[in-house]
């Protein structure tokens, strides 16, 4: 088995004594496409910045390609691609010059890929950056992150300013990047449907901690909505193990249960004297239930 590209253990970060991330551990293997979810202020950007070594951790540490991420050597940096939340382009330059400047830092730059993508994404390379729309700038920013075919691509809410067509094109490109099984992508997004479509691993940050990490199927199996229907009125206070929330309406009840296992169904039916139906949730529904 190949060693993980990214490995974090007990990662924590405080700003001026205020804890923003606590005790986070994870690994990212080659071929992983990780979607990071969390409410505003959950610590997604901080987590990505810690992974990239922009800021030192307060506790724990991150290893990127086996190096301490805060002290990454240049050769390791050449294997990273990063697309920031807000573009950091130079307004005075044309898109082609902007690409030329960034490309010159990398020993391997795929001009063909960049030209092809810029054509597909309708990025005018002759246009000055300051005259571009927000979406165009974001596309250019993504091109800069992809051009050197990085082993690890980290994107902080990359599609927020893109229209649905551009978003779909971008997501297809991400899949293409990760398809050879040797590259990894870590991206945060508020558009849960994109994460659902793209990621094979999900990280959910909640209350400054890693609330959930694993593949999407496990998450869907683990958090389900349980419907109980009885001929008799159900008890006023239903006690359902690991229930995130319960709604009762006379003879029926609905509960979102975490850590659900198939064998629990019969036990619950007996306990409540009701017919139990289990409904699988979409990622968006799971996310909403977790933050209700």
């Amino acid at each position, binding site marked *: 088995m190949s060693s993980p590209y990214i490995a974090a253990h007990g990662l924590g970060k405080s700003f*001026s004594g205020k804890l923003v991330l606590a005790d986070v551990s994870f690994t990212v293997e080659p071929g992983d496409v990780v979607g990071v979810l969390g409410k505003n202020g959950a610590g997604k950007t901080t987590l990505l910045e810690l992974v*990239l*070594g*922009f800021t030192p951790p307060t506790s724990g540490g991150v290893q990127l390609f086996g190096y301490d991420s805060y002290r990454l050597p*240049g*050769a390791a*940096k*050449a294997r*990273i*691609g*990063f697309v*920031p939340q807000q573009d*950091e382009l*130079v*307004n*005075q*330059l044309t898109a082609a*010059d902007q690409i*030329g*400047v*960034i490309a*010159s*830092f*990398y*020993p391997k730059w795929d001009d063909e890929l960049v030209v092809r993508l810029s054509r597909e994404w309708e990025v005018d390379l002759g246009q*000055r950056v*300051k005259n571009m729309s927000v979406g165009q700038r974001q596309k250019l920013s993504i091109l800069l992150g992809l051009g050197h075919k990085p082993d690890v691509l980290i994107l902080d809410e990359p599609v927020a300013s893109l229209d649905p067509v551009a978003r779909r094109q971008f997501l297809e490109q991400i899949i293409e990047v990760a398809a050879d099984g040797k590259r990894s992508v870590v991206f945060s997004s508020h558009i849960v449907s994109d994460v659902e479509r793209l990621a094979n691993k999900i990280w959910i940050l909640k209350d400054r901690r890693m609330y959930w990490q694993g593949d999407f199927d496990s998450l869907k199996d683990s958090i389900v909505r349980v419907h109980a229907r009885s001929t008799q009125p159900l008890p006023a206070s239903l006690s359902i193990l690991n229930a995130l929330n319960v709604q009762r309406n006379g003879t029926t009840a609905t509960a979102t249960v975490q850590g659900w296992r198939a064998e629990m169904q019969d036990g619950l039916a007996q306990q409540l004297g009701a017919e139990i139906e289990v409904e699988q949730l979409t990622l968006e529904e799971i996310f909403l239930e977790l933050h209700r």
Partner: protein
Amino acid sequence: MKAIARLIFTYYTGTALLRFISSAGLLAGIVGSALLLYFPPLTGGSGNPSRLSLAQEALVFFLPVAGILCFTFGASLLPALLARLATSHYLYVLPYGRAKLLTSAFATVALTAVFAACVVTMYYSMMPFALGLVFQRALAVSFVTASFLYVVLWLTGKGGNIGLLAGAFVLIATLVLPLRFIAMPSTSLTIPWTICAVLWTVFAASFLLAPRLKASVGRARHALAGLTGSSYRGGGEIDFLIGTARPWALAAGQGVPIAIATVLLHIFGLTAPSLPSPWLFFFTIMSVISSALASFAATRSRALWLRARWTRAQLFTNVESSFWRYNCCTLGVLLLLLVWSGDVLEMPTRVVAFGMGLLALASALSTYIGLIVTARIGWRDAVLAVTTMVALMTAVVYLSSPATATTTIVAFVGGLTALTFVVREIARRRWGRLDWMLCRGDLAVRASA
């Protein structure tokens, strides 16, 4: 190496205008130097026989100088690009990004200085000077000047009071510092080289250690913000939104360096009649810079427009008033300093008296030229701005000369006053049809620069 070369190339050729300026500078420098070599020693109107007319000689003299200036300003993208990349996340993920960026900046300054030194050496090549020494001296002076000049471009391009203030301060150092080494050929070059070495070492260390220093700087800023408090005061909403809420920071910042310079000049025994022209020149530059903030007004006024129930005409009146409140502080300090320094440095009363009027006019003109920036800057605006500056500088020269008749000075002042009213009227009309889609922030920044 590829990245460093690419960065340097981009500094000089990043935009069409810079490509033109750099190429023209390079060409003018080379052709001018070749002409100096080709032609016999120029007499410069000294009365000795010459094959060329005075105008032709002036052109041959001017060409290499223009080449140096154009080539130096051709790399104007250096500070903007350096600052943008240095403050972005790219610098953390680009392989050896910090070291390459720093090297490219140093190499660009060195390249500019070497070019200037070569041209200057060619200038003196037909004269009986030790050319090695000429090259060394020119290199030292050019290196100091170029280093400071790019800092000035960066500071003034940032916008805001403090940026303009710091830019003005460094600009004075840029202009004054090399004068001593040009004017006095026997002065040791140890001082400029030491200054350069110290400045570049400090800059390089802070640039390379920036990630580690960032947290400390953040804490210091936080503490400082707590001490100075918010720039917003109840009732001062217009000033706050337009950016004219803190005139005293700029006024105080202008006062300290001028006061120090006055005392130093007094100690060195530099007084009238040699001083008035450059001294008044600095005051006028200060006055123009302090009012140049107005070029940001149109962009910033959008928030004001959304919150106040004003027509565009009322908006202009209120913004104009806000700038005059601001100007009163900065200009008031400058006028007081002019009177005081005039007394200390024994400047002629006439120069001080007319100088005060000139400063007020410079401030007014600069404010209204800033206020006409309501959209992309056209060639008419650029010509107007350049003409105004030339007119102000010409007025300074005439005003400082004892030979100039009072009627000439009065005519100059009258002409500038009329120009002020014309520019104000243009600004008023433009604000009457202000379109915030057309006055984006970056245009204002360019105007300020």
